[in-house]
């Protein structure tokens, strides 16, 4: 009790349904093109209008090509889905950031960078990586399409209150160890179901020292431990990030908002349903070897000799063997991007290794900014020049090869080092083999052509 999660959740309770779930008020609904069309259809079938249209923001991101966005989408089915979102947004009076608009990008990148996701809010989207917005000090979670329709119709959702967990990471991260590595480490410790039923508060020296970009990466991956969401209590880092953004409170409202946001922390007497403590010294750059994000190792470690149910099936799919070390393994594709690692800091990290080096000839690299705003900043900082000199090309924003709903599919059998969030069978294209890693590990693979410890290149 008296956790930050309790405070935000309890404040948003409209009513407790007898012997049932909570009716929870939602401050922000984001819609993308994949999980919304059937919700809009449902609204039309019921003859409903959106209850609070001004709280809903729509943008396509999953199907958008990462090249020639000024031309019509070649895949007619993708085009229909993207066009349908635009039509639905117009019909229901919702804000829509279309393709090629400077406001467009991956919904979980755009929300925070525009100041639409703020501390203390409840935020939902028909997308499991909505947990990303928790980095702002918000209760943010993914929902299904029926639930999207609930929020459109009523600005509320019916949910059972999850249990609370605090994960504390103490110490200081070593050279070349990033928020992504912390998350991959936590997933390996907890497994992909270890936090199911919980909302996670991340704390400790490591988390406090993370930039907002790092916190967004960490919270993004909460769902990969099964947690519905994860968040970081807002602090000066949060306030500095939000200040001046398009939808951030201004003037007197800003001062009032910050005064309120400063109260958003777990009490000293807070009791969590579960507490876990880890030490940064145990975390090195990480990679996955299997077909779920919990199947991971330190980059210098070997794949375990044995695992549970599904271990052999996973290794069979990946073409790896128990006990094998992956350093030196040949890589075919490298993907930098996604709502996990498509922010400016990720491009800076990648460029720090690419600088003065050349892309390995037989590696195909896709570098996809998370939004047009990220793209703009890349160019302002001159990172585009560094990357182009090293033989890399920057593509146009979108979800891209994270789930390969556009043309960016890893061919069957090819090995990809990806900064995305899931290494499930076929996730990056049917038969594609995915190793999840940080932007530094991805860059090290891109310039050497093999799995390489980035610490040797820094």
């Amino acid at each position, binding site marked *: 009790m008296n956790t930050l999660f309790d405070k935000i959740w309890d*404040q948003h309770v*409209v009513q407790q*349904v*007898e*012997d*049932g*779930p909570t*009716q929870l*008020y939602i401050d922000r609904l984001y819609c993308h093109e*994949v*999980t919304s*069309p*059937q919700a809009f*259809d449902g609204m039309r079938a*019921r003859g*409903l209008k959106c*209850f609070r249209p001004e709280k809903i923001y729509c943008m396509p991101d*999953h199907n958008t090509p990462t090249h020639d966005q000024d031309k019509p989408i070649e895949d007619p089915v*993708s085009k*229909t*889905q993207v066009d349908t979102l635009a039509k639905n947004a117009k019909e229901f009076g919702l804000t829509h950031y279309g393709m090629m608009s400077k406001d467009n990008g991956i919904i979980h990148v755009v929300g925070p960078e525009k100041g639409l996701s703020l501390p203390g809010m409840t935020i939902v989207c*028909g*997308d*499991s990586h*909505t947990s990303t917005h928790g980095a702002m000090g918000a209760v943010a979670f*993914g*929902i*299904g399409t*029926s*639930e999207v*329709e*609930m929020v459109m*119709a*009523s*600005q*509320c959702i*019916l949910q*059972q209150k999850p249990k609370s967990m605090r994960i504390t990471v103490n110490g200081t991260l070593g050279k070349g160890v990033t928020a992504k590595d912390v998350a991959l480490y936590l997933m390996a410790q907890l497994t*992909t*179901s270890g936090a*199911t*039923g919980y909302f996670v508060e991340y704390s400790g020296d490591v988390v406090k020292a993370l930039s907002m970009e790092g916190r967004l990466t960490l919270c993004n991956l909460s*769902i*990969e431990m*099964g947690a*519905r969401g994860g968040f970081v209590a807002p602090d000066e880092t949060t306030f500095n990030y939000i200040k001046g953004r398009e939808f951030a409170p201004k003037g007197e409202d800003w001062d009032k908002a910050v005064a309120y946001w400063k109260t958003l922390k777990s009490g000293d007497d807070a009791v969590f349903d579960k507490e876990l403590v880890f030490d940064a010294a145990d975390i090195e750059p990480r990679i996955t070897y299997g077909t*779920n994000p919990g199947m991971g190792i330190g980059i210098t470690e070997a794949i375990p000799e044995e695992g*549970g*149910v*599904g271990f052999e*099936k996973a290794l069979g799919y990946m073409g790896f063997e128990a006990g094998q070390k992956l350093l030196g393994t040949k890589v075919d594709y490298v993907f930098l991007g996604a709502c996990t690692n498509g922010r400016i800091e990720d491009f800076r990290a990648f460029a720090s290794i690419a600088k003065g080096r050349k892309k390995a000839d037989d590696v195909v690299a896709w570098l996809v900014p998370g939004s047009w705003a990220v793209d703009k900043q890349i160019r302002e900082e001159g990172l585009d020049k560094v990357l182009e000199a090293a033989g890399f090309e920057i593509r146009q924003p979108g979800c891209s090869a994270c789930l390969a*709903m556009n043309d960016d599919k890893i061919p*069957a059998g090819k090995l990809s080092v990806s900064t995305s969030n*899931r290494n*499930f*069978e*076929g*996730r990056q294209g*049917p*038969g594609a083999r995915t190793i999840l890693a940080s932007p530094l590990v991805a860059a090290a693979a891109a310039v050497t052509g093999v799995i390489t410890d980035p610490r040797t290149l820094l």
Partner: protein
Amino acid sequence: MKQKFNVITSTCVPLQLENVDTDQIIPARFLKATTREESFFGDNLFRDWRYNTDGTPNPDFVLNDPTYSGCILVAGKNFGSGSSREHAAWAIAGYGFRVVISSFFADIHKNNELNNFVLPVVVSEPFLAELFASIAKDPKTEVEVDLPHQTVTNKATGKSEHFDINGYKKHCLMNGLDDIDFLVQNQKKTELWEQQNK
């Protein structure tokens, strides 16, 4: 959709795998549909396990084995992990499953099943292990899922377990009601909350 739920007795289809993620239940390339045709999603349920790359059925996958049939899917723990795509629940319903039995479900997928009148039944690990064994021994093993009494019974062994579901959702499932009906009826309470939390 909105098929009222009471007591279901059926043979089962066993999927003895753990951590079955929603990308396997319905791969992303089938999420481009803008309508809710459950038959389309049902036809592509477990697509990449069910069919070879040339489109022929994979004879080793359980859905292609005529030995097993029924409207109850029995799966290993952590069923439905990963993506929030409700298309996974539409695929399960579209194929004809009305119940999924497992020892553990991922949160979002569990809600998605309930919102599509597919009942996720959580059983203990020993009950699940015994059920897999019963089905292996006799594929005609029936299971009774009694929603009013919240019991699940392995008819081969006679073993029965209680399962949890909140009273509100149980009422919805048994009467064909959904959450949107409820929330729209409660808009006055929502407006009151907004007044108090400006």
